[in-house]
């Protein structure tokens, strides 16, 4: 009873907040609704027993990706009138994409109901692989059965990271702002940064 209740609670909240992501006028509100949607999706995953994936969803998407979204969206200066002006122009494109998505959904569900492709039995029996906890099963799969694919994925990500660094890294002139020498800053003593002056009365100080 509690599980059914929790499922419908999370499911309704995911759908409602996903609708609010596209419906809300303010982009920051959209991002916050998106975070709620992620969070409830994590709740659904806990419900089906995938607690590791659920925690990763919260840590990676809610904890890092959505913060960066929010960071960018917060600093945008948004002209709402201009946003709505583009609505008519992009309307046909939006309808086309929506039609494609709908067709895919209908096709997918239709194919599933016909049952033509045997993709395994989704009856929940196969979920606790190897009769161990989530983390151990995923670890065994990733690092034993699919180690080469996993390593390949790692190398692709590494290449992407190096690419991003190469594209954005610029070596400025040595004394430019932002090129700090931390060691030099730490070595600095009061004697070289300050001077003691004993000004006479009415004469002032020349620096």
């Amino acid at each position, binding site marked *: *009873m*509690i599980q059914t209740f929790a499922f419908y609670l999370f499911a309704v909240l995911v759908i409602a907040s996903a609708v609010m992501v596209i419906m809300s006028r*303010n982009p*920051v*509100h959209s991002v*916050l609704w998106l*975070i709620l949607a992620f969070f409830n999706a994590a709740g659904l995953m806990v419900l089906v027993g995938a*607690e*590791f994936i659920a*925690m*990763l969803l*919260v*840590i990676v998407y*809610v*904890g*890092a990706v959505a*913060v*960066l979204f*929010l*960071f960018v969206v*917060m*600093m945008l200066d948004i002209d709402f009138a201009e946003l709505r002006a583009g609505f008519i122009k992009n309307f046909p494109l939006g309808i086309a994409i929506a039609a494609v998505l709908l067709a895919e959904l209908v096709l997918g569900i239709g194919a599933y109901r016909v049952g033509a492709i045997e993709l395994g039995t989704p009856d929940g029996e196969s979920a606790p692989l190897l009769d161990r*906890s*989530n*983390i151990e099963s995923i670890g065994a799969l990733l690092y034993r059965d699919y180690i080469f694919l996993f390593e390949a994925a790692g190398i692709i990500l590494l290449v992407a990271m190096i690419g991003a660094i190469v594209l954005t890294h610029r070596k400025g002139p040595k004394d430019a702002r932002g090129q*700090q020498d*931390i060691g030099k800053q730490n070595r600095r003593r009061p004697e070289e940064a300050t001077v003691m002056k004993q000004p006479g009365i009415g004469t002032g100080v020349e620096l």
Partner: protein
Amino acid sequence: MTEFFQSLGMNYEFAWFTATIAGILLIALPVMLAVAMVIYVDRKVWAAINLRRGPNVVGPFGLLQSFADALKVMLQETIIPSAANKGIFILAPIVTFTVALAAWAVVPFDAGVVLADINVGLLYILAISSLSVYGVVMAGWASNSKYPFFSAMRAAAQMISYEVSIGFILVCVVLFAGTFNLSGIVNAQAEFGLGVVNAFVVHPLIFPIWVMFFISCLAETQRVPFDLTEAESELVAGYQTEYSSMAFAMFWLGEYANILLMCILNALLFWGGWLPPIDWEPLYYVPGIVWLLLKTFMFFFFFSWVMATVPRYRYDQLMRLGWKVFLPLSLFFIVVISGYLMATGHFGGAA
């Protein structure tokens, strides 16, 4: 506890529900009381280090100072700036406070004394602590004011940076313990050091990890020397500038609940949790929760001590420490510790 309520004649589901609610109250109310008391301790410690007296008027030795402050705050008017984004402005302190309390669900206070004994407990804590940035960011944005906004951006960058290195540090602990369950991690520390010391931290490879974890905890909870989000000399009061009354108090409570959580995590992950420091029979007669709270209190004293002695970092120094020092160091330690554990046959002699 569910069995107890079932023995009163409830069916299983209702008994489970009642037991969970009772458990939440049993944890949340003492945590709130503890927050009130550690704020007093904090102020007393700073006062002692500054050669002042600290709060000493309300109640014996000023013990009731926090309650007097709470009463004062509750009687104030709640002011919502007219240009603020009202919904989010009100939501922000609620998020901070809720998230700060939610993390306590998986904290074990003694062997088996835990509300939710889940096997991804450590990941849960990491997930919840990554949520705590939202309270600050929402408050800063919704206030529609310069300084809170600066503070929110600083908070977002700072907390993401230090979460990365905290994640790697926790991986090192998990490598030693072999589990993400917090009770399991504490149990793995029994007789860890030379068969007598019940703590991970005595290991020469873990001690530097713990030092990094402690400093990252200071940054994660925005304590001095990393309290750039509320740097009063630059940002008035940071993200709390526009808040008054209970909303302000909830930020305050949430902040200290987070600090207490980080202290208790230090104790659980590195210093043996509820186990006595030395594996000696008479020490086990002291209840486990006393050891845990003593260790937590010790770390809280460290937090206050740092606050009273260390000046604030510059923002670029903070970022440098997070990304250029802690991140490579913690990655390096993951490699070294995994190698060491493989070489010593920690993983069942598979090496």
